């Protein structure tokens, strides 16, 4: 079946612009995760949803970062007033409840 899909795959934003990154999880997966992966580093947890409920947002680096999953399926990660340090690959993962996490290809964000 189809895996996790993310769009856009690449995004270039000027410093100060707002961006929105989309994630389509595997059908039927109730849990959805966002991770940030800096160049040459491992992914770092940002936030986690179970259905539409955001159960953990402890990894969001600042209040400029906001995630939502209003209908318990597609999720959007929004970054307001982007800064250069926000440049990274943003990975989305989904899983059955408490199951293995399956990752999407990521969105590479470059802030100029």
């Amino acid at each position, binding site marked *: 079946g189809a895996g*996790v899909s993310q769009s856009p795959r690449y995004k270039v934003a000027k410093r100060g612009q707002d961006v929105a990154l989309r994630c389509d999880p595997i059908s039927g997966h109730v*849990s959805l*995760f966002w*991770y940030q992966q800096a160049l*040459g*580093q*491992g*992914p*770092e*947890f940002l936030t*986690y949803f*179970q259905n539409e409920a955001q*159960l*953990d947002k*402890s*990894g969001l680096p600042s209040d400029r970062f906001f995630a939502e999953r209003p209908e318990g399926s597609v999720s959007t990660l929004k970054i307001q007033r982007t800064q250069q340090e926000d440049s990274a690959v943003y*990975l989305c*993962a989904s*899983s059955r409840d*408490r199951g*293995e*996490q*399956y*990752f*999407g*290809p*990521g969105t590479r964000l470059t802030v100029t």
Partner: protein
Amino acid sequence: QQQVKQSPQSLIVQKGGISIINCAYENTAFDYFPWYQQFPGKGPALLIAIRPDVSEKKEGRFTISFNKSAKQFSLHIMDSQPGDSATYFCAAKQGGSEKLVFGKGMKLTVNP
């Protein structure tokens, strides 16, 4: 601080050789230890995972060895192939939490 420490940072092996990647952790509440493989431009893909109630798990050419007393676990890739050339991440998850904590990754190169 780094909750999961991975070594070495890079490894070059010849085709047919054994690749060994090590990880160490401090948090004794971790109860799930997956290994992920990541190719350039792709998201991490789950290879194999283990829970601390077993000391070894084998799937094809991939074996995880787990030493609970030493708080260490390792990935062995037998009969390494050029197609195994990728970055490998160990990770850990704590009981009661769904977020994965990743190591920094190890770049494996398998020469033909």
